[in-house]
């Protein structure tokens, strides 16, 4: 196990290095000069040159690359090239809790709805209830998240006035404020995820119910719910957990768009803004962090997966 762990950790580090490298060189290939844009208003090419120099962009690319790698390893992600040159670490430290809040809330909402829905769907296979769940799940899967977000704003903020249309309130301002700002974005990105989980629970549940040992357990006269919860459900969870592993990826992708609709400056928005503004250090930093999270979550899921299902060998 520890050898497997070591191997996987090393692999993850290699992936991170590759990500860092790829992002670095691809960003340099992007057309568009942030410094010209920044001083467009003042029309001062010397100021642009000075800034380029201050950020080391006048140096050969390989020098920039090694500097960047060395600094990144030391935990220094540089500063934004815009405005007051806020450190990238600060930007990420501010925005990450927002994305995390949305993501966790979306995850909780999705799982709370999806697991019971999937179970019921499986137990009452082909009933009206099952069909209902299936159709709702497919609707959830098919709705663009930003569209759902807009519909929610129109209904609950502009129409009913129950929830604030935009913005984010940190937990320090109270749970109510935090929740009221995040519930709509969380629903918007949690919905497709809930649909996937519900479908997964249903199909893996059905499969487990078909297996011999569950049928044996039933024939032994155990209560239906007992069989279900003690025998079938834990087994059915295995593939579900795999999917939850990619939950973060899925929810993050949703957050990129939805954060833009709700004017919440989370990691997704930092990334998009960084790309549009060609704020190289910010994009590099944000992508490193985002992919670090993915790589880590994949690693954890694999461990979890291995722990739950002893049949999996550590190759």
């Amino acid at each position, binding site marked *: 196990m520890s050898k497997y762990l070591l191997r996987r950790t090393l692999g993850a580090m290699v992936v991170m290095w590759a990500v860092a490298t790829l992002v670095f060189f691809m960003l340099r290939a992007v*057309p*568009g*000069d*942030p410094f*010209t*844009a*920044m*001083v*467009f*208003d*003042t*029309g*001062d*090419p*010397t*100021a642009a*040159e*000075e*800034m380029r*120099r*201050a950020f080391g962009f006048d140096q050969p690319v390989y020098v920039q690359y090694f500097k960047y790698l060395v600094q990144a390893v030391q935990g220094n992600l540089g*500063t934004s090239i*815009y*405005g*007051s*040159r*806020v*450190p990238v670490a600060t*930007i990420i430290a*501010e*925005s990450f809790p927002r994305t995390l809040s949305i993501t966790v809330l979306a995850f909780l909402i999705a799982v709370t709805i999806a697991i019971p829905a999937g179970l019921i769907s499986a137990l009452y296979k082909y009933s009206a209830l099952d069909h209902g769940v299936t159709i709702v799940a497919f609707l959830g899967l098919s709705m663009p998240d930003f569209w759902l977000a*807009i519909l929610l*704003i*129109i209904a609950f*903020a*502009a129409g009913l*006035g129950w929830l*604030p*249309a*935009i*913005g*984010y309130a940190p937990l320090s301002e109270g749970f109510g404020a935090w929740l009221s700002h995040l519930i709509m974005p969380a629903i918007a990105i949690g919905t497709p995820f809930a649909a996937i989980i519900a479908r997964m629970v249903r199909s893996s549940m059905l499969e487990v119910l078909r297996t011999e040992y569950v049928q044996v357990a039933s024939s032994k006269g155990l209560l239906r719910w007992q069989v279900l919860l003690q025998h079938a459900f834990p087994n059915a969870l295995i593939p579900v957990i795999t999917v939850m592993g990619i939950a973060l990826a899925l929810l993050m992708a949703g957050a990129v768009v939805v954060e*833009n*609709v*709700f*004017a*919440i*400056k989370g990691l997704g*928005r*930092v990334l998009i*803004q960084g790309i*549009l*503004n*060609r704020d190289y250090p910010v994009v590099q930093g944000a992508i490193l962090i985002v992919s670090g999270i993915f790589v880590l979550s994949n690693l954890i899921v694999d461990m979890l997966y291995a722990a739950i299902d002893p049949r999996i060998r550590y190759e």
Partner: protein
Amino acid sequence: MTHPFDDPKLRADFDDAHDFDSRDPMFGLHRSELSGPVLGRRAVLRLLAASGVLTAGHFLTGSTPARAASGGHLRAAWAGGGEITTLDPARINQVLQFQISSQILGGLTHINSDLVAEGDLAQDWTVSDDGLEWTFNLREGVSFHNGDPFTAEDVLFTVERSRDPEKSIHSRVLSNVADVQKLGDHTVKFVLKAPQASFLVKTLERASGRAVTIVSRGALAAMGPAQYGLTPVGTGPFRCTFHELGQGVVLERNENYHRPDRPLLDKVTITPVLDPEPLAAAIEAGDVDLIGGANPSSELIDRFIANPELEVNMTADVGFQAVWVNPHRDPFRVENFDKPLEELMKEKGFKVRMALAKGLDRDRFIKQSEFGRGVPAYGSINPAMGFFFDGNLGEDSPQKFDLEAARQLLADAGYPNGEGFPTLKLLCPANLRRDAQVVAGIYKRTLGISIELVTKDITVALDDFLSMNFDLARIGSGGDFDPDDAIVDWMQTGSKFNGLKRDKETMAFGYWSNEEADALIDAQRLETDLEKRREMVQKANRLTSEKVACAFLFHPTSTLVYRKTVNYPAAARIPGLVELDQISFA
């Protein structure tokens, strides 16, 4: 409140203001009246009367109206950006930033609602006869939010900082300043290289000038530039007590502000909001009291006007928008704009150029793209500049919309009904996409020509524009408070936007070059006599219109939206700015 004209003194002021030869509004005014604390009430009123914008409201500003209630917490949304990237004047490059910084930091001067400079941290000033030496007496007893006293040293420090291109992006603003001297603890002298008419408005203005917006030495050293850019320390009406990028800014009342009557509010919270829909929802639901920042999308305005809880305060905005035509490309190639107009009109390329200017149905554009908010433009000088604006240009300019003439020109150039006309590419930054679609639609309709949109990220679009890498480009100018912002920055051969990054081997000039306009614009820059300056400004403006420096499109409308509970005095209504220190709750 009594009507202003019931007051005999105000009545006399009004009569005096109108008592002049309309062609010579400066009659009887001397140079001394151009020195400040403000331009002198009489001079201002005459300027206003001369430009036809004098209203009874202007007489109320001097007399103190019923004192507004003070206190309260104003929640504001800032349109047009996802974050307030910086509040450090040395780095500011957006209106929505300096609107806020100008409430935290002071400058030597500050413009009023007529775009005339008044003293801010400068108590008063004198100008030498040659117009080169400006001596300012600074306000005494002013202190920064951190307690440091404000002195001449701070002016010198700020100027030094702004001159260093590594620290400031505005070093060019000070290129005409030869020297700054400290004459005493509260006296400074600026020595200019050449007289500059726009010095008070363009260089020293605390909001839009940014090069002499006074920063705190002590705070900069204590916090470092990054933190200072988030929560700057200044002498202004509000202290910045919180700022998280993307989350917002909190301003709190500066108890020691040098004007005891300001600010009225205790606290202001500013949240940046990028999208129009959430913005509208926020003010309609009462989550915010006021929308500042960029003008809210024009499509929302009717909706706000219809809402009885909201006040929509509109006035002419500073700036001009245009469709730029690349003279180095067919079919509108023009090699020399110095030829007389009659000769140019014989050239095929110029005919097409003129057809594009004449075929631009500005009224339709304003209706479709701006939902009726805005004024057709025929030059770069905007109506907010009142005194300098040329109200007749709309009638006289050959750019005036004329469908028949435009089609005829195109036919003369060899493209009857647009037949055989190449498909043009219209460059626009992503935020102007809707607007550019309307332009394309109008040309298809009026001239029968096809235009493809090339939408690019702002960084790429600006680069392409400066490199002259476009057929047509849809780009305009934002914060033009002084004529220099329009004509010096845009309409000279050496203007900073005029093909700065073009390939100089193949292109002798950028989008336009004209010797006469260059000379006029240089001359007006140095002219401190307002009347003479206006004459030159308008003449240059006319030239750019007649010879189609670009197809001028429209001047936007400055729109402030707030809930009826907010009291926003007319005197504080400066286009492009949000004077939070004069706002109160009714």
